[in-house]
């Protein structure tokens, strides 16, 4: 792998945002109420917007002439560097909200910290994303509280969603060699420094929601190295279908 740490760090952030944004777009027209349909589409729009800025910049950093569309639509599964968490299927509404909360509770303080990036473009992207992610944390946190502290059925589903997704939360803090180089260059914050804020948000929400934080022996990982769960191929087939079928199509 000859790609530099700035490219890889930017690409990972872009892949996370695109894949989760795509998952949210799958809810379009299917959410439990109209307001939530709009909310999920808005959350997805924020993430896809962030992905566009990040992919454009990754393409510039890479310097091989790839633009945002080529990076988003023309890479193979093993070339994606997103977290396993964000590619997990939507499941029921509790699963979607839990997945979103775990991601946002980490990414909000991450973007706050990345505003001080040694790289001016990443700092600028973070300054926008930070404001958006604050809304995501609040919205999903309020929902998880409502579900967890709601009926017996909503509580059961919220706890099941948390039990299912919690093992994917460890990957948020994974630091490999490329990431270490990006942290040392000051491009991205050290996820360990984000952990107290993440824990604070999660603990607050889970306490209010009367949900229990699962105890797991080992966390799932592999997405950062391009080893994905079985869901990723189906997601990409859907995401890339148009561009693969009609290359260079525009509208």
């Amino acid at each position, binding site marked *: 792998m000859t790609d530099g740490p700035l490219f890889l760090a930017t690409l990972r952030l872009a892949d996370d945002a695109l894949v989760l944004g795509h998952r949210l777009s799958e809810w379009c027209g299917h959410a439990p109420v109209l307001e939530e349909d709009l*909310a999920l589409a808005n959350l997805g*729009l924020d993430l896809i917007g962030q992905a566009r800025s990040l992919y454009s910049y990754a393409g510039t950093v890479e310097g091989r002439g790839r633009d945002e569309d080529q990076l988003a639509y023309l890479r193979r599964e093993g070339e994606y560097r997103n977290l396993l968490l964000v590619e997990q299927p939507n499941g029921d509404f509790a699963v979607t909200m839990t997945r979103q909360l775990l991601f946002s509770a980490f990414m909000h303080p991450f973007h706050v910290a990345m505003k001080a990036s040694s790289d001016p473009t990443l700092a600028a*992207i973070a300054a926008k994303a930070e404001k958006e992610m604050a809304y995501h944390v*609040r919205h999903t*946190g*309020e929902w998880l509280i409502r579900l967890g502290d709601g009926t017996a059925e909503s509580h059961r589903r919220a706890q099941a969603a948390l039990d299912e997704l919690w093992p994917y939360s460890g990957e948020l803090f994974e630091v490999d060699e490329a990431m270490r180089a990006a942290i040392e260059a000051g491009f991205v914050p050290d996820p360990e420094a984000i952990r107290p804020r993440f824990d604070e948000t999660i603990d607050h929400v889970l306490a209010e929601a009367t949900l229990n934080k699962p105890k797991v022996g080992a966390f799932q990982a592999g997405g950062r190295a391009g080893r994905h769960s079985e869901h990723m191929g189906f997601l990409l087939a859907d995401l890339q279908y148009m561009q693969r079928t009609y290359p260079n199509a525009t509208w």
Partner: protein
Amino acid sequence: MGAVLTFDQARQPADKSRADAWADAWAVAAAVCDPEVPVLTIEDLGVLREVRIENGRVEAFITPTYSGCPAMNLIALNVEVALEEAGFTNVKVTSVLSPAWTTDWMSEAGKAKLAAYGIAPPKGKAGRRALFGEEVVACPRCGSADTAKVSEFGSTACKAHWRCRACAEPFDYFKCI
């Protein structure tokens, strides 16, 4: 507004002073409306950041309200067309991310226009709000403070969906960020 006036050459015709040319270009770009909130110009919104004239080329700088704002492409196109229709021949529109857009840049005139249009304008300064805090937004129709948030997300990325308990009308609130 940090308008850069370091241009070397005014646009043609030569009877305009360079400052006039800049003022013209600014006014033309500033008059472009937001396609999703058509009562506001991009100047009212603070989306238009800067206009430069250098070596006969006009460059307008705009900044997105939200990363995924779908109106940006259309705004860029409309600014370009407006400047060309006004006689500027060498026009470029550049999108900048930094500094990040904030509702603090919305003009007072813009806020008044929003309220008259039925959208509650952003309240106060975009300081750091408590993550799970409450806010009070007055109904843009009847002025009552007896309102409730229906959803944090409304018809566009920049708006939330509220309703008034006094007059029973739903309304949009332009989120304060």
